[in-house]
């Protein structure tokens, strides 16, 4: 079973609520979920939708074809009807959309009437709709109350009860009134699954890495991370401070890092641009810092609530002057958790800045897992907190073999911790002579680079060993490449190569992925941008020049069917 549900309506009608409750309920029923969101940069009106793919087996990408269209307004019907599959159904409430449809594909469920009958607020019609979908799919309402409680928060028993009442009403109605038989799940016993989206994954990754300080300025689509950590701030004693601007955000975070705690800042492309100078400051002062850059289409304000992979080369080369940095580009929430943790580890171990680059698509997509491997999640405190050392015994930038100097915490011992944005000596004081400059460049940059590179894992390979067609990509295109390979494997020798640890560029020593790419019948570079930044990076680092690419720059993610179409197009060319 593999069903796609699209919930559409105006901003403010509550489709966020319907979508997240359904996704959560499915996961609890042990069904696999993949959901993504498409919304405008406005708070009321317009048109948004929330799409959920629910199946018995893991799913990793959204489809274009939908089986259930839940329409909160007439506009949704007009916009999405053409995507409906043959045995699909359109659920709506004529009283809400203002128009009755009598074709068989329509199922008019009087959710508003149900709220009236129950004498509760119209808002609860959304619970009736949720109930209807669950009922139609043959899933019970046992888990409904605790699920909505999470979303309604401290609204009290009464509210939960009323919502449950109307949900039951919708549940029965759908079952009694000709819900398509094809769209049902078997009543098998299933273990509940973990449901997590990209924003939560980075936030959770930071939480389990001992992040104690987050300063950020709100910016879609990065704000979700800040919200997640703020929601845990009191329990786990984390300071989440909203800065006056992004420049303050990164400088505060560097201050906190200097002060002795694991710190982070989050933003999107425009805010990251404002942090460029601060990034360079982090490079010179060798302070650990983790930055999450959640991309949206640019340039400038661009399409604030949509998705793109347009900042890759900017972020890799960002900051004036030369200093090492780490860049990770997770493709799934699972990778996001592990790589956020690795970012904190490497940032502190090497005293560099580690950046996690995500995008609106990954941030908002929900994935399900049976479990997530915790064994790889490290926590090692690399700071020197010893209280006993004497003042004379410490030099913040002591020249060491590996270029990493002990990082002491101010006020914990008689030692003086001195950092300077100017070029400096071992103690951290301003210098101008060429000899010391050379030593410091070698220490902070040339010695660390090879060590950092050794820490970088090679790309993930999946599919046929001698592919006729090889899909190469990074970041949030993981899901679509992976499912395309699965789809087409039967027909042709196909594989994918996905990079989630991208800078320093992985060393082909252990796994010669360059050779893999070179040997493939046709290597195709897949990116969610217009200029092929990843292809340029690959050429710069390996010399390999891609002959084929699949690109998308309309602010939307790749959907499975159109993507398969492009792959077929390329196959014909071979």
């Amino acid at each position: 079973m593999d069903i796609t549900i699209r919930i559409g309506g105006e901003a403010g009608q509550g489709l966020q609520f319907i979508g997240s409750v359904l996704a959560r309920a499915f996961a609890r029923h042990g069904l696999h979920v993949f959901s993504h969101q498409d919304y405008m940069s406005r708070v009321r009106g317009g048109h948004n939708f929330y799409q959920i793919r629910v199946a018995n087996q893991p799913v990793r990408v959204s489809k274009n074809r939908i089986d259930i269209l839940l329409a909160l307004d007439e506009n949704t019907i007009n916009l999405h009807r053409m995507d409906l599959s043959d045995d699909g159904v359109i659920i709506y409430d004529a009283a809400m959309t203002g128009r009755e449809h009598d074709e068989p594909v329509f199922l008019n469920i009087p959710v508003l009437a149900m709220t009236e009958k129950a004498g509760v607020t119209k808002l609860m019609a959304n619970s009736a709709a949720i109930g209807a979908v669950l009922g139609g799919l043959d899933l019970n309402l046992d888990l409904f109350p605790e699920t909505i409680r999470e979303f309604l928060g401290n609204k009290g028993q009464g509210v939960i009860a009323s919502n449950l009442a109307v949900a039951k009403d919708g549940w029965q109605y759908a079952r009694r009134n000709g819900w398509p038989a094809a769209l049902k799940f078997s009543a098998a016993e299933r273990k509940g699954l973990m449901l997590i989206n990209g924003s939560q994954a980075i936030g959770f990754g930071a939480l389990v890495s001992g992040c104690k300080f987050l300063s950020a300025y709100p910016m879609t689509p990065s704000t979700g991370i800040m919200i997640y950590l703020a929601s845990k701030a009191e329990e786990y004693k984390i300071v989440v401070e909203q800065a006056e601007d992004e420049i303050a955000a990164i400088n505060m975070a560097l201050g906190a890092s200097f002060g002795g705690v694991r710190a982070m800042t989050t933003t999107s492309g425009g805010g990251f641009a404002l942090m460029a100078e601060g990034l360079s400051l982090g490079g010179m002062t060798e302070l650990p810092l983790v930055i999450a850059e959640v991309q949206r289409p640019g340039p400038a304000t661009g399409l604030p609530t949509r998705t793109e992979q347009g900042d890759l080369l900017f972020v890799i080369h960002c900051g004036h002057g030369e200093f090492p940095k780490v860049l990770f580009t997770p493709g799934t929430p699972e990778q996001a958790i592990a790589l956020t943790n690795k970012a904190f580890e490497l940032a502190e171990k090497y005293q560099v800045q580690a950046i996690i680059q995500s995008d609106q698509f990954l941030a908002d997509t929900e994935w399900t897992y049976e479990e997530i491997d915790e064994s790889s999640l490290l926590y090692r405190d690399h700071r020197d907190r010893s209280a006993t050392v004497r003042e004379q015994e410490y030099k913040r930038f002591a020249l060491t073999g590996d270029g990493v100097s002990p990082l002491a915490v101010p006020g914990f011992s008689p030692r003086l911790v001195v950092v300077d944005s100017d070029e400096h000596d071992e103690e951290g004081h301003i210098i101008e002579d060429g000899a010391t400059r050379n030593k410091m460049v070698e220490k902070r940059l040339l010695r660390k680079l090879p060590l950092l590179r050794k820490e970088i894992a090679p790309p993930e390979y999946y599919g046929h060993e001698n592919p006729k067609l090889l899909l190469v990509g990074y970041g949030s295109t993981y899901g679509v490449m992976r499912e395309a390979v699965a789809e087409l494997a039967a027909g042709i020798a196909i594989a994918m190569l996905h990079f989630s640890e991208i800078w320093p560029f992985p060393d082909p020593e252990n796994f010669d992925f360059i050779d893999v790419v070179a040997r493939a019948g046709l290597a195709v570079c897949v990116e969610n941008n217009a200029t092929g930044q990843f292809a340029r990076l690959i050429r710069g680092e390996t010399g390999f020049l891609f002959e084929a690419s699949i690109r998308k720059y309309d602010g939307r993610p790749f959907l499975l069917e159109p993507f398969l179409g492009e792959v077929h197009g390329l196959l014909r060319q071979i």
Partner: protein
Amino acid sequence: MGFLDRFKGQEPAWCPGCGNFAILNVLKRVFSEMALEPSALTIVSGIGQGAKLPHYTKCNTFNGLHGRTLPVATGIALANNKTHVIAIAGDGDCYGEGGNHLLHAMRRNANLKLFVHNNQVYGLTKGQASPTSVPEFKSKTQPFGNPSAPLNPLALAIAMDCSFVARAFAGAHNLPQLQDLVKQALQHRGFAMIDILQNCVTFNKINTFHWYKERTYQLEENHDPGDRLNAFSRALEWGEKIPVGLFYRNARTVMEDNYPMLKEQCLAEMEFDQQKVLRKEMASFF
């Protein structure tokens, strides 16, 4: 060992006669009078002549970017309360490049002190107008004088309800008073600002040592720093006579107190138990 030795740092690179020397000495004197250890001090500075100060004494130091002194200091204060956090900035640093941070640092009222070396000019970059330069100040980049009106830091601070607002002049006869203000600032819990008039012998030929000396006078004994309106009116005095001293003070909540998690311990002291977090939070996604 005298304070000059205990707090001796690098050789200053300032011009002979620069007002910064006086400020440096006053700070060293206060540190030793308060019997502070160098390790109990963190001085954050930006880029400029005054901003070189931490290198010329002994302390934990974060000499950051031009204009970004206050966010760095705020981050330190929120993470680690084991030292006095002092921010040293120039007038360009703090009222120009860093103006936005000044506004919001005053709103936050974190427990840190800001000493502005206000020489009414960009010294390190060789003499351009600063936000406090007078209209008749001409330079290679302001051939017609300063086209913008000078900023009044004290009026601004009082309007922002900054919890400690003072002005001093780094001139001989005024040093005891500067010293007293610095000490009061360090003892004040919250954000304290002292705008320190400092002569730049090389680039400011208008607001010279004597220009300041002739004009500055001590606020009356009976001046009430609790009277915001009166403080504002005194802050507007600038010309033939320039008052110095503590203009305004209040007892607003300190930012750190608005964060429940900072009640017992500072962040830098906290232990972290990864297993505990994993167990509980992983479950919350099911």
